[in-house]
């Protein structure tokens, strides 16, 4: 098991290295000079040149790249051109919000997707299955920002059921300790604040979770149907087990395997979706920060954030694969 983990971690290194090269080149080749972006359209050429050189932008590309990698290897993700703060410090402040949002979306997707998938699998091609299929097609095909604004409009603006934007009502004066709004609300000891933070999380979680929900539902359905046809399920019935026990134990323990893998892969799409969702719901996480950094030509920030997203993605998938190995004895012992 340990060897497996070490092998997987080593395997991630070339991926990250390749990604860093591609990212670096891609962003340097974008039109627009970051120095101009910082100084504004009317800056003098001298000033632009001076800032460019202080940022190291006048050096040959490979030198810039090597410097960048050298810093990265020392855990230094650089600092923003715009406000001078290090990427790491801003990241620590903003990441909890993103983690909260993606967790909410994941709970929504898995918590609803697995029961729906099982329900659909019970009578394949029946009307429930049809309804579930229609729902997941809807979830897959509707863009996040359309769903997001629709949810805001209906439940926030028209019905006033849920707060439309933000993470917590500023009037509650919750002290940001951990930057997780729910945890901070709990720490504040104010029950209303906890309710408020949870209420704020609902709409963005639905918007962000709709695609993973659709995918988890489809995979669960397919996996349960697949496993139901296995010989060992017939063996389980032949023992005299109840249908419920056959389902919960003999089918689900196996059907979980592909679902787990897919859930891991969804983390990538959640991070990508967080960029849009945070912008729609005015959520101060890493996603909206990426958008701001791109608008500001804040190259170092964009580059570092994408790098960090990639590391998170690989790490989560590693965790998922370990979980998979734990669920699947055939992997565990090979």
């Amino acid at each position, binding site marked *: 098991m340990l060897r497996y983990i070490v092998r997987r971690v080593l395997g991630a290194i070339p991926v990250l290295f390749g990604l860093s090269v591609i990212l670096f080149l891609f962003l340097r080749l974008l039109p627009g000079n970051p120095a101009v972006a910082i100084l504004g359209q009317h800056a003098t050429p001298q000033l632009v040149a001076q800032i460019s050189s202080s940022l190291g932008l006048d050096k040959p590309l490979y030198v810039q790249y090597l410097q960048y990698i050298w810093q990265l290897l020392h855990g230094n993700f650089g600092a923003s051109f715009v406000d001078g703060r290090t990427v790491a410090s801003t990241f620590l402040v903003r990441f909890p919000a993103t983690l909260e949002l993606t967790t909410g979306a994941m709970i929504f997707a898995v918590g609803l997707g697995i029961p729906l998938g099982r329900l659909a699998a019970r009578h394949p091609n029946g009307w429930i299955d049809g309804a579930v299929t229609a729902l997941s097609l809807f979830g897959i095909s509707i863009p996040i920002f359309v769903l997001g604004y629709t949810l805001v409009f209906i439940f926030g603006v028209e019905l006033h059921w849920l707060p439309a934007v933000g993470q917590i009502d500023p009037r509650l004066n919750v002290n940001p300790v951990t930057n997780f709004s729910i945890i901070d609300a709990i720490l504040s000891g104010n029950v209303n604040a906890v309710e408020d933070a949870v209420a704020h999380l609902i709409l963005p979680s639905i918007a962000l979770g709709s695609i993973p929900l659709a995918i988890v539902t489809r995979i669960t359905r397919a996996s349960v149907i697949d496993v139901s046809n296995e*010989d*060992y399920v017939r*063996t389980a*019935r*032949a*023992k*005299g087990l109840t249908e419920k026990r056959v389902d919960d134990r003999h089918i689900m323990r196996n059907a979980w395997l592909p679902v787990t893998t897919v859930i891991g892969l969804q983390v990538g799409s959640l991070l990508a979706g967080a960029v849009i969702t945070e912008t729609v719901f005015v959520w101060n996480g890493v996603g909206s920060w990426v958008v701001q950094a791109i608008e500001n030509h804040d190259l170092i920030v964009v580059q570092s954030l994408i790098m960090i997203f990639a590391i998170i993605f690989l790490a989560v998938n590693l965790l998922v694969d370990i979980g998979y190995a734990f669920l699947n*004895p055939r992997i565990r*012992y090979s």
Partner: protein
Amino acid sequence: MTDTLLRVRHLRTYFWTLDGIVKAVDGVNMDIGTGRTLGVVGESGCGKSITALSIMRLIERPGKIVEGSVDLDRTDLLKLSESEMREIRGNAISMIFQEPMTSLNPVFTTGNQIAEAIRLHADIGAREAEDRAVEMLRKVGIPDPERRARQYPHEMSGGMRQRVMIAMALSTYPQLLIADEPTTALDVTIQAQILELMKELREERRMSIMLITHDLGVIAEMADDVVVMYSGKVVETGDVFTIFERPHHPYTQGLLGSLPRIGQRRGRLRVIEGVVPNPLNLPKGCLFARRCPCVMPICEQTPPPFQEVHPGQVSRCWLTPAGTTPAVGMTAPADVAEAEAARMTITADSGRQSATAAQMGEVGR
């Protein structure tokens, strides 16, 4: 005769497919005596497994048992509620399957799976069930059973897994074991070992076995009684000596003709010319007519009756109990020569048998 443990009557199990209704089991009767082994033979697709699964009431959509009775000790299983039936499954009747490689759940240890069966039908604790599972593994000849009980199926060979299946099936002391081609997927030496094991356990437990196979060698070695199936119907039954010594139905004769001589065990059944009829488009008369060397005009018109040709031997065929054409008038002129020639080849072989039968005074009764 011994008393009957399981009595199947007029069993019909149909499948509703997109192309039409498949009558996988079409009016099957069979009796399994207490402590006896019934061999069920027939080519692949003739309805052996579906018969077994119908007895267990494990038929799933699009299949359904449409008619019949399955009496176990005078209780009709087909009339039980689903929860009463669960008390029977894996308890009074256990089943093992053809594919040992896929019949055990890959994510649970073998000990766990056996203990699950034991606890389901006996009121005992988890520890005790696990100990009993280990005992069962020992009983079926698995070396180092304590270690094996903690292993997963994929850590074992096919033969070993089939032993685990047998251990699981027998862990609840069933009255009847249904073994659906238990050795077909195994290689020859392992087959022999598994059959040997089943024999030993049968002697010890005095349990009845329904042994499904398409291998007559296995039947010869294991069975007391034989049911020959063709196209969802029973075409001949009798005790094993009768069936091997003087088979009546041309299909049974064909199966036996394809069997290598004594001493050479394995015989495959596919040697009879032609293929089984399409289940969606069955012929009007005898289902075997298109492949039968003795076919007569009446065979293609009217399904033959299921008649006792000798005491204890029942055959679904128009031929007389002696195996001859019933009446000259029944043979259509066009076919005479051909049918007669075919019949000659059969009777050349069965002539000796008819002679024996005649000596026994059973012909033309």
